[in-house]
């Protein structure tokens, strides 16, 4: 831990606050930040300086209609009240579909993951201020979790902001509601579940894209907190139906139980 951010990464602070780094460089810089208080202090000041640049731009009144459009979307925009779990599925549905490779997660891993949730929420508060990660000595695991949670929120709002974004809410047969938000143009969807029961150990909720050919796994989630949003893994095809089933931990390659919620997008 050097008193001054004098290594190569240290020179990135200006580019970092100006959002001029590539994604890889940004990730490297942020992980280096956790080791250097001096670098964090510098970044905080330079980020505030960048804000001064932003505030020096002449304000432009946005079109009046934009306000209404944004306010209309609040009802279907879940707020991140608590830490939210990222989707625990591989991007490539084919991998999940292969029997025996369904990412078994040990009880220990599960416990460890849960254990990291609390520190992460503290971290998120700090990270949100400048869009960077403060807090030296934070477990790498926690940093990754925070980035994924933030990615989920940002992906959900991207889907909602798509010009062709639509949503539909259905009841979950075991209690609670599920709202699917989707954009055919983006081929993406996210589900916001509210009031769903926590499952007993060894079980998980699994999401599916359903079409005439059958069911494609789209990720698993555990009900955690009152409201939770999950971005579905894989690509949505026009007319796909989204279903939720209860499956053994780790998920199944094909549904083994009847769906507890089904949302049609056609």
């Amino acid at each position, binding site marked *: 831990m050097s008193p001054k951010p004098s290594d190569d990464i240290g020179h990135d602070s200006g580019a970092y606050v100006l959002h001029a*780094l590539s994604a890889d460089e940004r990730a490297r810089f942020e992980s280096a930040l956790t080791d250097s208080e001096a670098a964090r*202090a510098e970044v905080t*000041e330079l980020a505030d300086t960048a*804000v001064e640049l*932003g505030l020096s731009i002449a304000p432009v*009144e946005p079109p009046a209609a*934009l306000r209404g459009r944004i306010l209309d979307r609040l009802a279907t925009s879940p707020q991140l009240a608590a830490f939210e779990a990222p989707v625990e599925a591989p991007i490539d549905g084919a991998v999940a579909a292969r029997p025996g490779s369904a990412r078994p997660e040990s009880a220990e891993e599960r416990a460890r993951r849960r254990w990291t949730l609390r520190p992460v929420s503290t971290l*998120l508060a700090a990270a*949100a201020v400048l869009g960077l990660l403060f807090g030296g000595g934070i477990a790498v695991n926690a940093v990754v979790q925070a980035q994924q949670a933030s990615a989920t929120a940002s992906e959900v709002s991207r889907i909602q*902001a798509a010009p062709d974004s639509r949503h539909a809410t259905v009841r979950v047969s075991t209690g609670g509601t599920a709202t699917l938000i989707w954009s055919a143009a983006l081929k993406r969807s996210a589900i916001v579940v509210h009031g769903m029961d926590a499952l007993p150990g060894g079980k998980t909720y699994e999401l599916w894209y359903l079409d005439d050919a059958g069911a494609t796994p789209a990720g698993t989630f555990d009900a955690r907190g009152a409201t939770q949003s999950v971005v579905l893994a894989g690509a949505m095809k026009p007319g796909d139906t989204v279903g939720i089933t209860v499956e053994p931990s780790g998920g199944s390659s094909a549904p083994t139980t009847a769906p507890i919620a089904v949302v049609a997008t056609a």
Partner: protein
Amino acid sequence: MLALVPRDLDGVDADASTLSNEELLRRVATGDRDSFAALYDATAPRVFGLVKRLLRDHAQSEEVTQEIYLEIWQTATRYDPTKGGAMAWMMTMAHRRAVDRVRASQASRDRDVRIGIRDHAPAFDSVTENVEVLIESERVKAAMLRLTELQRQAVQLAYFGGYSHREVSAMLSVPIGTVKTRLRDGMIRLRDELGVAS
């Protein structure tokens, strides 16, 4: 969370337009849509002005502004007033989002940059030649003029143009390492000129 009623509105219910952005954001975090509307009214011209500066395109600027405000709504619970002002939090988010959108058309821009700076000249000029027009604040304008030419060009291209350091490097014909150093030195100089301290 949406079901939660803001706690301390009892009786007092101040006119939302008189509240600070920080207080509005705190109420937004409890699911208060009126406060969100008030926050939007208080800040949208700043956010939209910034986004439009980077994106130019009006329709895209509207889309990105919408994304930004939905993100503000969704992540207000993470805002920590002890770490900085609400406006700084939102402007930082806005700049990142606008740059993300600029990057979304990265492939075509990479091609432009490879073709050469000459073909890029119009965009380059419109960004760098206009310190006078670009920057409304006299204080910031004066601070910018204290930078070296290379520092100023690099900072302007990165912040107001949304260009990556790689693109800035191609446009100014200097090595990437030099661009990074100029960006850092330039921002440090600006920080000192503007008296920004945390």
